[in-house]
């Protein structure tokens, strides 16, 4: 009803030190109170940001999070590291080559989950309609924004980003549009640490220039099919007849993509069904053949998956063990229990039984993984506890101490590795910044302290003990 404003303006401000990169695409407009506003919140370089939050020395520095062994991959890279060409999912060795100054840290998923929960607690407070996509991404559709004008949306978005940055301490980018597709595309445009609100009338022109690959549901195959008939942009896809699209991409899929290309996106924002399984897997630095060693690795994965099961607050009924040989042939074996359980010993025992059938003696193994499925919140309770089965007796079950036990048995003298959380009675909480030659250098700092001092110890120093990664949050951002 109101004529469109000036041309699409994708300007974005990036003041050095703040979180106020805001752009409104299109001019000031209001379309009659019927606009639906979907927001997509995407944390910026989430894992690396959490590392920088809890280890302030790393702020503004290139940080790579991921497996540190020869076959490790990058799980997260800070923006400073990305400037050198490092990226997520890249082999760690490649990322290190590109960015030699980067600090490489093993992931601390429990901490990331905690920070993620804090962020989404804020988001839920601001919007009842909420859909978490992953640990660092969510859609929201705040009721108060229904029919609002883009300026109001932009204010809301900045309030949201401000609260996340202020109360949790990590940066987030937000995109807003009339549907999930637009919100997702605009949050990508807003990165890093910015926001973009796209006005309904401008959606089409914004979409039309983008490559078709940016549409949800178009992967390499769909892209190749479309390119063969000369379609490269979303605008060109929208210009096709519906019949042509469906004959190329299938009836249901083609129809949906054609609508999306036209900016029609009515998919609701709703809580997602919970994950169907929890799992843990590891790729070895060098192939393993020793049965005892393999079993202990498999049990380690069963325990790691169990911690995730507990975190998901569910019980599992089916245990699946995956073993990949050095020639990449993969064997999966699974067992279904008579009822779902959260008991570690029972899950580990089942995994051991599977290991006996899945691992062929003498075959070099490259990867092992354990997953639990048949997840349910209803757990068959037991009449009594089974006494320990002997093998695990004496080993406490808390994740931290288990980790230490594994480290000491696996690596003998080398007690610490870079990135470990430690604590010292005099200096407090810190992290291992370097170690070797019987010495360990610890940076004592948390999210609450600001950059801290480094101190060096003898690696056998008894005052230095393993600490809970969650302690690195200090008290900052402790919203509860």
């Amino acid at each position, binding site marked *: 009803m109101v004529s469109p404003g000036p041309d699409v303006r994708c300007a974005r401000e990036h003041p050095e030190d703040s979180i106020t990169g805001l752009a409104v695409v299109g001019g000031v407009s209001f379309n009659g109170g019927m606009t639906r506003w979907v927001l997509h919140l995407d944390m910026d370089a989430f894992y690396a940001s959490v590392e920088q939050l809890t280890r302030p020395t790393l702020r503004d520095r290139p940080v790579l999070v991921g497996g540190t062994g020869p076959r490790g991959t990058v799980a997260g890279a800070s923006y400073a590291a990305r400037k050198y060409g490092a990226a997520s999912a890249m082999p760690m060795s490649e990322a290190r080559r590109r960015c030699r100054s980067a600090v490489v840290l093993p992931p601390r998923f429990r901490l990331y989950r905690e920070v993620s929960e804090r962020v989404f607690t804020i988001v839920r407070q601001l919007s009842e309609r909420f859909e978490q996509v992953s640990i660092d991404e969510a859609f929201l559709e705040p009721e108060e924004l229904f029919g609002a004008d883009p300026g109001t949306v932009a204010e809301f978005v900045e309030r949201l980003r401000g609260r996340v940055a202020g109360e949790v301490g990590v940066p987030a980018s937000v995109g807003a549009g009339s549907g999930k597709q637009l919100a997702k595309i605009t949050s990508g445009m807003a990165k890093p640490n910015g926001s973009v609100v796209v006005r309904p009338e401008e959606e089409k022109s914004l979409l039309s220039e983008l490559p078709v690959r940016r549409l949800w549901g178009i992967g390499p195959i769909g892209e190749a099919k479309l390119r063969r008939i000369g379609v490269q942009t979303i605008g060109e896809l929208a210009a096709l007849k519906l019949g042509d699209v469906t004959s190329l991409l299938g009836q249901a899929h083609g129809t949906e993509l054609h609508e999306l290309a036209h900016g029609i996106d009515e998919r609701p924002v709703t809580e997602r069904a919970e994950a169907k399984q929890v799992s843990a897997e590891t790729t070895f630095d060098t192939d393993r053949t020793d049965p005892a060693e393999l079993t202990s690795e498999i049990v380690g994965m069963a325990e790691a998956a169990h911690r995730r099961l507990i975190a998901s607050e569910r019980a599992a009924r089916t245990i699946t063990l995956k073993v990949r040989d050095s020639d990449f042939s993969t064997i999966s074996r699974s067992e279904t229990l008579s009822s779902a359980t959260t008991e570690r010993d029972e899950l580990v025992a089942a995994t051991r039984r599977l290991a006996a059938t899945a691992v062929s003696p003498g075959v070099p193994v490259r990867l092992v993984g354990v997953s639990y499925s048949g997840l349910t919140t209803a757990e068959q309770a037991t009449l009594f506890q*089974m006494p320990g089965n002997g093998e695990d007796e004496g080993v406490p079950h808390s994740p931290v101490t288990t980790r230490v036990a594994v480290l000491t048995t696996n690596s003998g003298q080398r007690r610490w590795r870079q990135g470990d959380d430690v604590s010292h009675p005099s200096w407090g909480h810190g992290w291992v910044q370097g170690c070797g030659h019987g010495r360990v250098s610890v940076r004592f700092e948390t999210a609450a302290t600001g950059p801290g001092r480094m101190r060096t110890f003898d690696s056998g120093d008894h005052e230095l003990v393993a600490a809970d990664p969650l302690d690195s949050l200090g008290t900052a951002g402790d919203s509860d």
Partner: protein
Amino acid sequence: MKIRLERDGLADAVAWVARSLPSRPPVPVLGGMLLDAEDGKLTVSGFDYEVSAQVGVDAEVETGGRTLVSGRLLADITKALPQRPVEITVDGSRVSITCGSSRFSLPTMPVEDYPQLPRMPELAGSVQGDAFSAAVAQVAVAAGKDETLPMLTGVRIEINNDQLTLVATDRFRLAMRELTWQPAESVEDTEVLVPARTLAESAKTLGGAGTTVELSLASSDGLLGLSGTTRRSTTRLLDAEFPPYRKLLPDEYSTSAVVDVGTLTDAIKRVSLVAERGTQVRLEFSENALRLTAGGDDEGSAEEELPVEFEGEPLTIAFNPSYLQDGLSALKADRARMLFTTSSRPAVIKPAGEDGEVLPGYLYLLMPVRMPG
């Protein structure tokens, strides 16, 4: 050895011994069946160091002797023989079986390599065959099948003067049966743990109406013997500690209900069709009605209401539907009394009579499924 005997007697005897033979014998002779002919009788035996089975059958013995043949093969052959007298002759290293116009020739295995069957332990007492097999079946249903928890794969037999108590639990449910028996004079009070599967199998095939089953026990040798009129078996006891279960039995209840077993079983079967992977069925007890529900928004839901005689606090409790059905069918009664304390504590199910009175001797203790929230 040269003998002649009735086809049915032979086939039954061989089939019974064959069920206790290992399906994959660790050494070939343990898959064998020992035939021993003497004094107008053929004795058929099998033994795999865990379980032994022996049965005697009348035969015309022309020449006595012993031979060892593949048990599986002998069972298949005798089952298929026509309804005619059977002649078994050992000639050197082969045994020939002739019946009507059929003739089989089997290789024998070295008898001297076959282990000595354990001697039957000392008699502990005797019990009515049908009562014993029914009692074992009522209890074995709750035994565990997980071999990594051996103490839960057995049935505990407690001897207390003229009272026998059988108990089994897989830690999700527990079944207990008490019955009277005739103890032998010398028997002392004791308790043993017997592999549930073997015990259930032996009890079923030994105990018929009107028969008596004798239990013999040698705790020091770790052996239980069971014998009927012509059949006897031994089984190795489990050397494991049964969990202390008496303290699990609740002594007071806040809610009590009497239900019709058939009606409730049918209703559980129906509503649990939508219970995802059979995980849980919820029971809501209130004044004069029992409401069953299962499933949820995602997988579909079902509900059904049945009449119930109810006393006490209204209660909602969830169970694994197959465990609940196991318990109801093990009652061997048309009515059941269900007793509860809270929705997170074990429930007790007992057989009940026409007026809802508890029929003594059996209980099924079932742990509920934890409900979310």
